[in-house]
């Protein structure tokens, strides 16, 4: 107990400084963390928060996610996952784990590497970066039948975490944030882009239902929709190609768990069909994040199909 106390008071000063310094570089040089301050970066903010909710879903803790675009250019992402922990963080007494997560950049080298390797529109930079670049962020956590709330502005807590009271039949995390105009100017989030983002996450992970809602008028985008693709990529591909002729009635599709096949974490899912009606495409993803430049997973996929069709032709 004594050890714990003395150890704690020692880290207290250092930690408080670290939090302040922690998010400052993000605001100073947003490009290093989200690849710029353009429209792509702005939408990346939403993808980031959505990816956190998706992580909960992929890990099997959530099956419903809501994405809502509000009229004032703020966004709410809600999941029914485990909820970000709210108890005091052992290393930072007086701070909730929630606050530590949202106000501290992740560990050094790995983080910067990750941020770099994915900054072109991919994820992995953490919700703290979104927090730093939002002039208002409010996080609600429903956990153990209690509702908690904490708000931040530009990465700094507006006050300690609040207990809003008991709550039934609900759990999970709700994040609402408003991208800071100081960083992003007057650019606004585009409903069409977020709609597609929400839909892609749903077909990439069949276990999740994503509800979309937008208060921003756009003639080409529904203001409400529910995405759920129990049959995953195959279902989405069939829908996409429903209006054109295809050579196979149902696409060649499947899913293989790497755990079962190779005893390592991971999986692969695919769907392909051939059509004389249009040019082909391959949309590939890694951990639900698009990989427009392809990579090793695509090579493996084409190698398999190429060898397969040649072997079949040889009979």
């Amino acid at each position, binding site marked *: 107990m004594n050890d714990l106390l003395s150890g704690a008071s020692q880290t207290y000063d250092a930690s408080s400084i670290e939090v302040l310094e922690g998010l400052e570089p993000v605001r100073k040089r947003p490009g290093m963390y989200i690849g710029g301050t353009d429209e792509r970066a702005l939408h990346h903010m939403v993808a980031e928060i959505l990816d956190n909710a998706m992580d909960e879903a992929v890990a099997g803790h959530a099956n419903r996610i809501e994405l809502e675009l509000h009229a004032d250019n703020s966004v709410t992402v809600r999941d029914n996952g485990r909820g970000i922990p709210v108890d005091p963080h052992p290393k930072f007494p007086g701070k909730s784990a929630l606050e530590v997560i949202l106000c501290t950049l992740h560990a050094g080298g790995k983080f910067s590497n990750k941020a770099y*390797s994915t900054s072109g529109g991919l994820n992995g930079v953490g919700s703290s970066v979104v927090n730093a670049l939002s002039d208002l962020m409010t996080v609600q956590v429903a956990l153990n039948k209690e509702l908690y709330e904490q708000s931040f502005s530009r990465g700094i807590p507006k006050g300690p975490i609040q207990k809003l009271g008991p709550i039934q039949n609900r759990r999970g995390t709700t994040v609402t944030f408003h991208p800071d105009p100081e960083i992003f100017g007057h650019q606004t989030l585009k409903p069409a882009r977020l709609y597609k983002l929400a839909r892609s996450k749903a077909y990439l992970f069949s276990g999740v239902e994503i509800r979309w809602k937008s208060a921003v008028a756009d003639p080409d985008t529904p203001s409400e929709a529910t995405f759920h693709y129990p049959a995953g990529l195959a279902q989405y591909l069939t829908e996409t190609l429903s209006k054109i002729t295809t050579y196979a009635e149902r696409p060649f599709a499947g899913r293989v768990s790497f755990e079962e096949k190779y005893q390592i974490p991971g999986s692969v899912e695919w769907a392909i069909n051939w059509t004389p009606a249009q040019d082909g495409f391959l949309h590939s993803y890694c951990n639900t994040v698009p990989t427009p430049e392809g*990579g090793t997973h695509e090579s493996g996929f084409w190698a398999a199909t190429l060898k397969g069709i040649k072997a079949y032709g040889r009979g």
Partner: protein
Amino acid sequence: MKNRKADLITRDDLLTGGCALLSVFIREPSFVGQTKDRLSTEEAAKWVENAVRDHFDTWLAADPRSAGAILDFLVLRAEERLRRREEKETQRKTATKKLRLPGKLTDCSSKTREGTELFIVEGDSAGGSAKGARSRETQALLPLKGKILNVLGAASAKLNENSEIRDICEALGVQMGTRFKVDDLRYEKIIIMTDADVDGAHIASLLMTFFFTQMRPLIDKGHLYLACPPLYRLTQGARRMYVADDAEKEEWLAKGLGGKGKIDVQRFKGLGEMDAKDLKDTTMNPATRKLIRVMIDDEAGGETNDLVERLMGKKPELRFQYIQENARFVEELDV
């Protein structure tokens, strides 16, 4: 033997008409590439291949009718491709005889298109240091004199007469408008390299407008890039470094470079002020440079068209209106 020509099929044939979605979940993936969105986790290739392969064989065997149709289709595609290549080769033989390259072009020596780059540079002086900085084998240079014609304000006859535009077309080996074929491109990457100032930005936007209106597929297929030359050189004693913008400059000025004495700041007025080695390290060497790939937002394709017309088009009132509407967004003007 279902189709003896199956061996002709290549990966490219699979993709013509093959509509596919692929999603992997792996732990700690790594990414590379100019925009860092190509998966480079090596094991993933084998994992995916082995996982898909068995299923594919089963699937093909289970539905011989679909499998046969796909096989025949792919063989057809392969044959078509081979025929096209043959035609093209004969064409090329006659074409190379006639191929006229603009006098200002410093071509690269590579015989194939793969890996080659054409730098379109602003002014002959920049062209000079770029010549020393380039890789002879893969990097070609085309210096432009001053600002090119704004194509949105020009009639097509004027386009054909404009010597700068003709030089670009000849250097690229392509024609404009509907006769543009992305396969004709003589280089894999077209890189616009202008000074990091307002004039440079203007020239770059004129060039982008040209490519956008006359050679759109070149952008769609990801061949067009912008080089990112530094704006400042900071020197402190023996330490020296290049920075891209004011924010970064301030940061280093505050922090110091680790050398002795005061920090000397040189602002580059043009690429020509840099010596070849510096230009190579900062802007041209693929291993150390940064490039911006020019892309058109898929979802806002129509918007892009509209905006280009408004900003670069013939009607000043539209431009004026846009500036009026958006002026409040612009906080800093570099004039």
